[in-house]
């Protein structure tokens, strides 16, 4: 019985083997080969494991770093902003923020109760709602104090944790508000230089989560904090004294285009950005456009002198008001005689400047203002800018009024740029809020008027302070030159007789200007000591004088008492036949 069975088995086995391996194969050899294969395979696997172990061992120090990366996940650091002397204008401070992972919270009611006990300003219902949601991550409170963090940590609520965030601090508060701008709670720039920084690639770094504090280099502004503070202090005092709606001022370096100080009162505290949205607190110097009034006469005179067709000894008829259609142009300080060019400037004669501009023609006037950048939007680092209001059809009447600063509204900073070019030797340099040196400025500079014309403009400005409308700005020793400007404000579509915008543009020192100062007062009121006058010479000019006296030592402008009168200055420096 067994015999046939084994036989059949053998036969089956033989059949199977012959099917699987073929007829004449030695299984022992085959087994050895398989063993070899298995050894190689296992050796391979083990060597891979060994290799990975070595790799883990060598790179395991990374786990400390990895933890910190997750901690700084929302730490969108920003670079410090410093003034030109290295004083801090904006910096980051780390603050903890409280978050929760609702899925991990066991008892919502208990958590809400405990948290609101430590943070009484949390809204109970809102917290409950957030914790009951099915989301993986919710913020509970941003920017808590370290002691609150300690307390909450001690409560030991599961599913509640802290992330370190960067909080932007502006130690100087409102003093530098309009330049710096501010940031939102996620440390993204919303206005001013902060927004400009985001445009410089910082925003992309934030998006990628790579903006850690090690990478950031501080940004140096052209601003001088001390000068800025002094200017603001004087402007606030001026606003109170003359009961003006607003006051503004700029100090610019005429040779490099750097803005050393810029104040527009009322301003806001960047630590409390809610104030910034108030339209009354906007930056009047870049986002407002104004008819600059007589200040523009400096541009008209420079144009006339630069054309070569008018010299300092030319004269224009100012005996009668200038009639143009139904309009009649009067002089505020009417002399009713033929005026020479310096007299037109010092008496601030509307008729004279209008005639001067007319003698050169509309196109010439337009082209000159275009060259001086008064007709195009001025772009600086600050994202806020305003388009000048240029008349659509520029006829002769427009030239007449624009010659003395009405009918064309520009941003005051634009006027600063134009007048800087008139006095610094004729080079127009775009203004900047960042530090810039002389060589960089030379590269950007464009020649707009001849150096001789600039010389004459300085003379005229100085003359105006010695015996013109700006005599109250004659601060002893600083050789100030300047031009006043008073423009009637447009109220309800027509020029108001009582509401004015006064401005004063000063250069110091006049023989070799280094700085330009612009003071602007919006709707100053007459006072007993100004005899009720509201023109620039009574308010903006004395404010300018105070600012100069206070700021000049900070700007390293030494007072000199051996300076010639304006007339001699021109005789000495230029070869103008008079």
């Amino acid at each position: 019985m067994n015999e046939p069975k084994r036989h059949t088995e053998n036969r089956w086995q033989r059949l199977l083997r012959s099917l699987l391996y073929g007829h004449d194969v030695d299984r022992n050899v085959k087994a050895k080969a398989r063993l070899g294969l298995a050894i190689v395979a296992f050796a391979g696997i083990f060597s891979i494991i060994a290799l990975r172990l070595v790799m883990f061992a060598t790179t395991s120090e990374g786990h400390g770093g990895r933890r910190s990366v997750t901690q700084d996940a929302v730490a969108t650091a920003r670079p410090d902003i410093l003034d030109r002397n290295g004083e801090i204008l904006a910096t980051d401070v780390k603050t903890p923020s409280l978050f929760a992972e609702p899925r991990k919270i066991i008892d919502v009611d208990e958590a809400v109760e405990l948290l609101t006990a430590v943070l009484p300003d949390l809204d109970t219902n809102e917290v409950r709602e957030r914790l009951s949601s099915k989301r993986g991550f919710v913020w509970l409170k941003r920017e808590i104090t370290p002691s609150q963090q300690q307390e909450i940590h001690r409560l030991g609520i599961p599913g509640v944790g802290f992330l370190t965030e960067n909080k932007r601090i502006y130690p100087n508060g409102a003093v530098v508000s309009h330049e710096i701008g501010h940031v939102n709670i996620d440390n993204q720039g919303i206005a001013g230089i902060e927004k400009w920084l985001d445009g410089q690639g910082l925003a992309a770094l934030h998006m990628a989560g790579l903006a850690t504090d090690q990478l950031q280099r501080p940004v140096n502004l052209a601003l001088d904090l001390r000068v800025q503070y002094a200017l603001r202090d004087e402007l606030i005092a001026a606003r109170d004294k003359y009961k003006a709606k607003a006051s503004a001022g700029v100090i610019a370096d005429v040779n490099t285009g750097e803005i050393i100080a810029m104040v527009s009162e009322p301003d806001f505290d960047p630590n409390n950005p809610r104030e910034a949205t108030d339209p009354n607190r906007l930056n009047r110097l870049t986002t407002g456009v104004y008819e600059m009034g007589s200040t523009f006469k400096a541009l008209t005179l420079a144009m006339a002198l630069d054309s070569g067709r008018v010299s300092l000894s030319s004269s224009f008829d100012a005996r009668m008001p200038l009639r143009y259609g139904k309009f009649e142009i009067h002089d505020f300080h009417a002399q009713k005689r033929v005026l020479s060019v310096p007299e037109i400037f010092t008496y601030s004669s509307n008729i004279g400047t209008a005639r001067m501009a007319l003698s050169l023609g509309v196109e010439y006037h337009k082209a000159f203002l275009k060259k001086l950048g008064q007709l195009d939007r001025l772009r600086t680092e600050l994202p806020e800018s305003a388009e000048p209001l240029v008349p659509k059809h520029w006829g002769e009447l427009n030239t007449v009024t624009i010659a003395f600063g009405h009918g064309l509204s520009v941003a005051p900073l634009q006027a600063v740029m134009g007048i800087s070019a008139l006095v610094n030797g004729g080079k127009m340099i775009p203004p900047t809020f960042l530090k810039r040196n002389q060589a960089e400025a030379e590269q950007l500079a464009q020649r707009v008027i001849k150096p001789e014309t600039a010389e004459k403009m300085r003379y005229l400005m100085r003359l105006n302070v010695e015996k013109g409308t700006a005599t109250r700005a004659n601060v002893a020793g600083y050789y100030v030159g300047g031009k006043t400007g008073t423009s009637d404000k447009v109220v309800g579509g027509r020029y108001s007789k009582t509401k004015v915008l006064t401005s004063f543009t000063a250069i110091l020192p006049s023989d070799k200007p280094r700085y330009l100062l612009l003071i602007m007062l919006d709707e100053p009121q007459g006072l007993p000591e100004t005899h009720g006058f509201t023109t620039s010479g009574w308010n903006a000019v004395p404010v300018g004088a105070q600012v100069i006296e206070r700021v000049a030592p900070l700007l390293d402008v030494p007072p000199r008492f051996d300076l010639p009168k304006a007339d001699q200055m021109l005789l000495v420096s230029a070869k103008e036949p008079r």
Partner: protein
Amino acid sequence: MRLLNILVIGALILAASFVYKIKFDSTLQAERVAKLRGELRRERNAIAVLRAEWAKLDTPGRIQGLADRHLALQPVRSTQIDKLDRLPERPAVVVPSPGADPIGAMLAPAPDTTGSVSPPRRRPQ
């Protein structure tokens, strides 16, 4: 053969313990590095806080307030500033001879010679 085996086993144990020691040390070092990094970060944050605080205390507005309250100083006028080289020469100090009686000399009729004091040098204005 057996000796060889024992030797190999011994070497294995030695190598293993050596590797363990290295590994242990490296872990210790890594922990120290992590700790120091954390400390550095804390210090850096503390420095940032202190810098912000210093900047806040150093604002011109605060200094002006303090100066107004505690000092009797006035703002400088431009006429109070001058260059060093416009200062007149300092008069030379007359050193009295040690033996002399200073008060007696003062009481005595002044001699005609005052040549020791050089007149202040005038510069063209």
